[in-house]
């Protein structure tokens, strides 16, 4: 599904990622953990194609195609989804309309029929219900005045509507209370499937109590310094990043 080889990324001329290697197979969930400033969000933005995140080396294959060739909207239409750490407020644009435009843009690209207003509404209600999201939120301007938890749920709702093949969730767990965390975790688990891959970027192990990853990677100083099973997340939780970074320094 996703094959990242020796990827280096610079922002404003400063190298942030220094040769990332990461392969994610369809059906897998990988967690990327790491201390602040290690380059986790940079990796997410680079994969989504954000302007200003300059790829200075390496390659990214997505479903056998060169992902880096594609514009951000093409990546989205091809099934790459980025759940934002800080979802953006767009005044004046009603959430429901935004969601409908996005859903139909992706469906058009896939050669599927666009959803009419009635089918769309039915689908949104169904998905929002699962996330225990008040439909009223969708009639408001997108993310404007939403609480942190509401914004994150809205991200997961968008993901559910767009049905991506590769979902990159950048700290979707931050700012959530324990109930919201469970609901969001359930939302992610529902998306798991043999055709899909999920990349969970997180500081903490707590989301991983709800979504068990197939693999865990620790990103520090622009490199993946350790990879392992879900056990690795527990190790991080208990010992912090210090020991493994020290280990790396010795080696």
């Amino acid at each position, binding site marked *: 599904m996703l094959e990242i080889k020796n990827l280096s990324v610079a922002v404003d001329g400063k190298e942030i990622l220094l040769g990332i290697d990461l392969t994610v197979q369809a059906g897998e969930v990988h967690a990327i953990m790491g201390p602040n400033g290690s380059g986790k969000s940079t990796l997410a933005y680079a994969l*989504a*194609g*954000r*302007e200003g*995140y*300059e*790829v200075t080396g390496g390659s990214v294959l997505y479903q056998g195609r060169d992902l*880096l*060739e*594609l*514009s*951000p*909207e*093409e*990546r*989205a*239409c091809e099934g790459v*989804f*980025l759940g*934002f750490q800080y*979802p*953006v407020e*767009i*005044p*004046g*644009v*009603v959430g429901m*309309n*935004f969601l409908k*435009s*996005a859903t139909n*843009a*992706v469906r058009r*690209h896939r050669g599927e029929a666009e959803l009419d207003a009635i089918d769309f509404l039915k689908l949104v209600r169904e998905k929002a219900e699962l996330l225990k999201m008040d439909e009223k939120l969708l009639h408001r*301007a997108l993310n404007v005045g939403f609480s942190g938890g509401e914004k994150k749920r809205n991200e997961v709702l*968008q993901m559910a509507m*767009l049905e991506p093949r590769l979902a990159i969730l950048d700290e979707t767990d931050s700012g959530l209370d324990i109930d919201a965390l469970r609901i969001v975790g359930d939302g992610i688990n529902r998306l798991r499937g043999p055709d899909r891959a999920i990349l969970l970027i997180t500081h903490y192990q707590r989301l991983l109590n709800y979504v068990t990853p197939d693999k865990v990677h620790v990103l520090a100083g622009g490199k993946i310094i350790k990879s392992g099973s879900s056990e690795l997340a527990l190790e991080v939780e208990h010992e912090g990043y210090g020991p493994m970074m020290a280990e790396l320094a010795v080696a």
Partner: protein
Amino acid sequence: MTSPSNSTQTIDDFTDGDYKYGFVTDVEAETIPIGLDEDTVRFISAKKNEPEWLLEWRLNAFRNWLTMTEPHWAKLHYPPIDYQAASYYSAPKSQDDGPKSLDEVDPELLEVYKKLGIPLHEQEALAGIAVDAVFDSVSVATTFKAKLGEMGIIFCSMSEAIQEHPDLVRQYLGTVVPTGDNFYAALNSAVFTDGSFAYIPKGVRCPMELSTYFRINAANTGQFERTLVIADEGSYVSYLEGCTAPQRDENQLHAAVVELITLDDAEIKYSTVQNWYPGDKNGKGGIYNFVTKRGACRGRNSKISWTQVETGSAITWKYPSCLLIGDNSVGEFYSVAVTNNYQQADTGTKMIHIGKNTRSTIIAKGISAGHAQSTYRGLVRIAKSAHGARNYTQCDSLLIGDQCGAHTVPYIEVKNASAHMEHEATTSKISDDQLFYCQSRGLSTEDAVTMIVNGFCKQVLQNLPMEFAVEAQKLVGISLEGSVG
């Protein structure tokens, strides 16, 4: 659209969108030599077979104009206009025979409308709109007149109104915008060649939207349209005005005058979509649009509502206003002004409260992109007599990119302590974050900008009649192509 490393390029491509409606139609025009003097005024009046009083009225305006100077208080910059370098009369020749039906209309003219996506035939049938199409200063087609006539509604070209309804024209013409009102209004009064006239009799609710499509065609022909709409007691009319113009290099002067009059309990809703040629992306060419639009709520409980979507013209100087004379009368102004590349717009309104309990609402949305400058300029005046007057004003500006400007110049004059005034203003920017967020959900930059801008303008666009609202939304998107920064 492109790879992320050159998305700045994308932005440029998007802003560089060429005018989609640029073309010149070759119609045999009867044009008088360039220049402007009393003989020009006499020629126009004679050509239109006008009564003596109107010629005198025009000459009076012309003499007035000679003593006036071009106003320069607006935030607009353009080279001096040589008023002697333009031709002041041009009419498609086939007009002399006077087409009796659409079949007789010059097929080339009809083709122009087709290119604009406004096929007359379909419009009549589908939209139920009576179209008085103004092409190069002379009306070429007037429809649905019989049906309107049965209700006593008069809807025709100004030329025809002068011939057929001289008393009404004489009673109202120039009573809202006097010949000496301002430089451009005086010029218009002297040399106007045609326009539209509508009269809605007492108690009649006009069953369809009255619509005029303006269009400049022959090169170097200034457009001086004159529109007069009168809503008699207890009547209602919704009037639509929309324009696009062919692409050309030279600047063109457009100085229209629109006068609206509502008597007791009457209402006029006047909607405009203005899409004259804005000039190319380097600021070359484009229409100079100096318009005087004013409505007088003369009757009690009467209402005048202006809605405008201004996307075209290189220079826009336009302040659709309301004189709230009758007690309890209501004035509204809803405006979207989109400027891109090197366009400049100085637009707003004047709400003059004279009667008791008069109310006015102003919602103005300015969008600037490229190197454009957009100014809201508005006056709310509460006269001493206007007890219990209320005004609500909201001015919002949206900037796209970092080379453009938005300015808000509100004037408020209150001479009656019982007045309630509210004023709100905001300035915002389409951020890279917002654009990337939309892109990451599969929306192209164009779609994202269109969606954000339409969201920003919603309050205004929703006041347009349905068929116009859809067109206006598209137009706003087209106008901003290539503007993201």
